[in-house]
């Protein structure tokens, strides 16, 4: 996993509530047995016309969206299916952080395990960001994970992150190593639980 420390980037603004994982990546792209290569299918049904050409009216296809690493979306982002392909597709396109007022539980877990940072902000901050960035798409925001601060032109806000996940993100390590290091505790638990 790529470490996440501090990021300054332009922002793709997609202010729709309840964007589900079927929109982030439709089920027909889940037939792969790899984690990579999913960026091309991100938001496929919104991004491409039925003939397969990019839809120029969809924000991801705007010239100023190219190279942006932050996505700003509406409330309850990532609801629906548990597919981790949603996080892989966002990362595959180049996003490293998503800003919303709230995230679905499974999506948040999946994102954190892959180095994609979910940034939850209060509704009034969200409204201000949508207004500001919608008007000037070339503005950048800065996300500093160590201090858990989001900075934009004219303001900043603190955002919550699970301390354990934060440590993994800052160091770029996944959780499996930690779980494996607990083998003795797990074996002891099993011995007690299954002793009858």
């Amino acid at each position, binding site marked *: 996993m790529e470490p996440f420390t501090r990021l300054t980037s332009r922002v793709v603004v997609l*202010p*729709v*509530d*309840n964007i*589900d994982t*079927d*929109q982030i990546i*439709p*089920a*027909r792209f*889940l*037939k*792969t*047995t*790899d*984690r990579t290569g999913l960026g091309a299918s991100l938001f496929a*049904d919104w991004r491409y016309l*039925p003939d397969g050409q990019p839809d120029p009216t969809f924000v991801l296809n705007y010239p100023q969206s190219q190279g942006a690493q932050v996505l700003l979306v*509406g*409330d*309850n982002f990532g*609801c*629906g*299916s*548990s*597919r*981790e392909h949603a*996080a892989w597709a966002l990362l595959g396109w180049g996003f490293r952080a998503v800003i919303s007022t*709230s995230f*679905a*539980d*499974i999506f948040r*877990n*999946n994102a954190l*395990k*892959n180095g994609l940072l979910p940034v939850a902000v209060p509704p009034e901050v969200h409204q201000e960001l*949508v207004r500001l960035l919608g008007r000037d798409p070339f503005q950048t925001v800065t996300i500093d994970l160590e201090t858990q601060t989001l900075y934009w032109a004219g303001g900043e806000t603190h955002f919550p992150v*699970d*301390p*354990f996940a934060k440590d993994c993100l800052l160091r770029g390590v*996944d*959780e*499996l190593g*930690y*779980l*494996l290091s*607990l*083998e003795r*505790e*797990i074996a002891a*638990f*099993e011995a007690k*639980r299954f002793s009858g």
Partner: protein
Amino acid sequence: MMTPKTLFEKIWESHVVVEPPQSPAVLYVDLHLIHEVTSPQAFSGLRQKGLRVRRPERTYATVDHGVPTLPPPDGRPEGRLAYADEQSRKQIRQLEENCREFGIQLMGLDSPYQGIVHVVGPELGLTQPGMTIVCGDSHTSTHGAFGALAFGIGTSEVEHVLATQCLLQRRPKTCLVYMDGLPGKGVTAKDMILGLIAQIGTGGGTGHVLEYAGPAVRALSMEERMTLCNMSIEAGARAGMVAPDEVTFEYLAGRPFAPQGEAWEKAVAHWRTLPSDEGAVYDKVVTLDVSRLEPMITYGTNPGMGMPIGGRIPDPAEVKDAVQRSTLEKALAYMGLRPGQPLLGHPVDVVFIGSCTNGRLSDLRQAASLLKGRKVASNIRVLVVPGSQQVKRAAEAEGLDRIFKEAGAEWREPGCSMCIAMNGDALEPGQYAVSTSNRNFEGRQGRGGRTFLASPLTAAATAIYGVITDPRTLL
């Protein structure tokens, strides 16, 4: 005196291996279910790291999401080669290979127990009260109907469970969903859960485990409780649960993986200690008066956009918040519906009866009770997809397949089918469907397809008239 505990707390606390300060709890997993779509990358991860499956006997696999549902022309599983594409076939082969290599029991295409993972677990008795159950699938919440703590996980977590039989988890909050009263004629468990989600919204349960209780829940059969818990995730909840009782024990008794003899007596005695204690405290309480509920139907593009079947489409102009308003406008534009419009009488192209929500025997019986001796409308295509091979055999033993076929519906092989539309069973762009499944997201049942979620009764009534129909007119 001991502090009164909820069902959730009892299960959670008995499964915490360690919980160091500042760190998430390490939660032990009793039962891990896997399928072909969300597991391949987890197995590749194990191979890359040189890891084994720590407890292969606690993992069970089946194939469901991508399996073809057209009957085998010559009776052999390999005859079911109506695979949507080579990738689907490859994904299923990959699971077979992974299960062989890592010693995991697979209910594959040649098994009499193959089916949708959330139908198979309960009917085999793998799912039991008090267990922690996970699967790389959000509808794992289904298993909570037995008084288990069951939730969906991502593929990285599938790998964690395969390698360590544990997961890192922050303790979720608890929410009591008290369902009062008893449902009227034609109102089913599906309508109860659609009614709840319409009330609390698709994010209403986020961060919480829902415990369904009250007279309306006690009166439900196990299959109905599974329908209820299945859609907990559509309210954003981490899991849904129903405390085990005699209905639960009766369902489980004698199932292949349920404890037998003395072990059964011991298990039941333990299960009786699981229900929430008198005076246990929840973080949140929601109530729903089921006696006032009507058959429900969704009109939009998430399961929270639901209303009584006789209702009218809400008007975005009456929504104050700008993002909420444009979200509703976008949904109605996709659905091709106008504010104020009724849904009764709205034409439909396809009816889908099946899925982990409503693909069990009692669901098929309900649909068949309306279709018996009737014909489906000439303009409509009706797919009936049993949830598992066992459901299929039981339905055929009762002659339900004949009722469906004589009515003009298609009787298919088990699988997820048109609920997720990965296997070739899909809506055409622009088509309307009444579906007994769980998600009406844009394109969920096929790109450009438009879904109305409803109960098997509403689906069957709609099949007969070819337009959205209140099932109570036929009861």
